[in-house]
C-alpha cells in the first residue's frame, strides 16, 4: 500500500490558532500528528522516525524549542514551515534588521551596542525618546521607552545587572510617533493574504497587550514592502508588522515566523488556518512526490 502524505504539527499549547489548524487538517482529511514540543526528543542516530513527515509545521510558543527542533528536522532532511534559517532571522530582532538593511527594505532607524556605556552613547546620538528592545522576545514584553538620560542610565544598568546575557545586546530603536496604530500583514509565500490595523492608545500596539484589530486593505504599497521584507528573511508563512513613519512612510518593524491570528481571522473573515494548512501541504507534497 502506498504511503500517505503526512504532516507533523509542532506546538506548545493548543491555542485557538492550533485548534483552527487542527480543524483545517481534519476537514481536508490530511494525515497529521500533533507533536507537543515538551514531549518529543531527537536521537541524531535515528532520523527515520522524523522522516515519516513530508513536512512539519512549527507552532511552538518557545522560540528556543521551535528553533532547535527546526534545525534538527532540516538536518534530517525534513521540510519545515518555516525553515530553521527563517526562524533564526525572524526570532532575533537584530538579525531581522540586518537582513532588511542588506536588502534595502525600509525600517526604523536602529543601533546596537554591547555595553551600557556604548549604548548610552548611541542613545544620546539618536536623541530622546528611544525604545530599547530585547533582541529575542515577543508580545511586547520588556520594551522600554526611554525619555531622558536618567531613564537611559537606569534601564541600561538594570538590563546589564539583572538580565540574562542576551540583555547585554542593547538594541536601540528610534521612537516613532505613529498614528495610534500599526499594521499586521499575513504573508503566505509571495502573497499578502490579509491585513489588520492594530489600534491602541498605548505606544505598544500588540494585540497581546490589549490593542484592537480593524481590517486593513492591502494596497500595492503594502504588498510591495511586505514582499520585499518576506524575501529578505527567506520567505514562508510570516506576519509582517509595519509602522507608519511620519517621514519615511511605511517601515517594517518586525517579522513573526509563528504568527498568531486569533484577532486577524475573525476581523478579516478569511480562513487563515486553512490557508496555512494549504501552504504546508504544498511544501509536503513536493517532498512526497520527490
Amino acid at each position: 500500500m502506498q504511503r500517505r502524505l503526512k504532516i507533523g504539527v509542532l506546538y506548545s499549547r493548543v491555542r485557538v490558532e492550533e485548534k483552527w489548524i487542527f480543524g483545517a487538517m481534519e476537514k481536508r482529511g490530511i494525515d497529521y500528528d500533533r507533536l507537543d514540543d515538551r514531549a518529543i526528543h531527537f536521537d541524531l542516530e535515528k532520523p527515520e522516525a522524523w522522516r515519516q513527515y513530508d513536512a512539519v509545521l512549527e507552532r511552538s510558543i518557545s522560540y528556543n524549542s521551535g528553533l532547535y527542533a527546526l534545525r534538527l528536522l532540516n538536518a534530517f532532511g525534513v521540510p519545515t514551515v518555516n525553515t530553521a534559517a527563517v526562524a533564526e532571522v525572524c526570532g532575533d530582532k537584530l538579525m531581522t534588521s540586518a537582513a532588511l538593511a542588506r536588502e534595502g527594505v525600509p525600517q526604523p532607524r536602529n543601533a546596537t551596542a554591547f555595553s551600557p556605556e556604548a549604548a548610552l552613547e548611541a542613545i544620546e546620538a539618536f536623541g530622546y525618546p528611544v525604545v530599547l528592545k530585547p533582541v529575542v522576545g515577543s508580545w511586547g514584553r520588556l520594551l522600554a521607552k526611554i525619555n531622558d538620560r536618567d531613564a537611559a542610565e537606569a534601564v541600561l544598568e538594570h538590563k546589564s545587572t539583572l538580565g540574562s546575557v542576551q540583555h547585554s545586546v542593547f538594541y536601540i530603536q528610534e521612537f516613532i510617533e505613529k498614528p495610534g496604530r500599526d499594521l499586521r500583514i499575513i504573508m503566505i509565500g509571495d502573497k499578502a493574504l490579509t491585513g489588520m490595523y492594530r489600534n491602541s492608545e498605548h505606544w505598544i500596539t500588540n494585540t497581546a497587550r490589549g490593542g484592537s484589530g480593524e481590517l486593513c486593505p492591502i494596497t500595492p504599497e503594502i504588498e510591495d514592502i511586505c514582499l520585499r521584507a518576506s524575501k529578505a528573511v527567506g520567505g514562508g508563512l510570516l506576519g509582517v508588522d509595519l509602522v507608519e513613519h511620519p517621514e519615511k512612510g511605511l517601515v517594517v518593524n518586525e517579522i513573526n515566523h509563528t504568527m498568531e491570528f486569533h484577532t486577524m481571522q475573525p476581523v478579516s473573515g478569511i480562513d487563515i488556518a486553512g490557508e496555512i494548512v494549504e501552504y504546508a501541504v504544498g511544501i509536503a507534497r513536493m517532498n512526497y512526490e520527490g
Partner: protein
Amino acid sequence: MSTVVCPECEAQVELAAGTEAGEIIVCPDCGVDLEVTGVEPAAVQLAPMEQEDWGE
C-alpha cells in the same frame, strides 16, 4: 459537560464543549491559568509560567 477541580483554589471549573488537551483555560474563581491535560476523563494542572522566549 466535564468538571474539574482547580488545583489552586479548589473551585469547580466546567470545561466547555470542544475543549482539547493542551488548551489553557482560566479558573473563573481565582484567575489562575490551567492547562487541560486530559479530556476523558477531564484533568487540569497549573499551566507553566510564561518564559522569556515565548511569543509568536
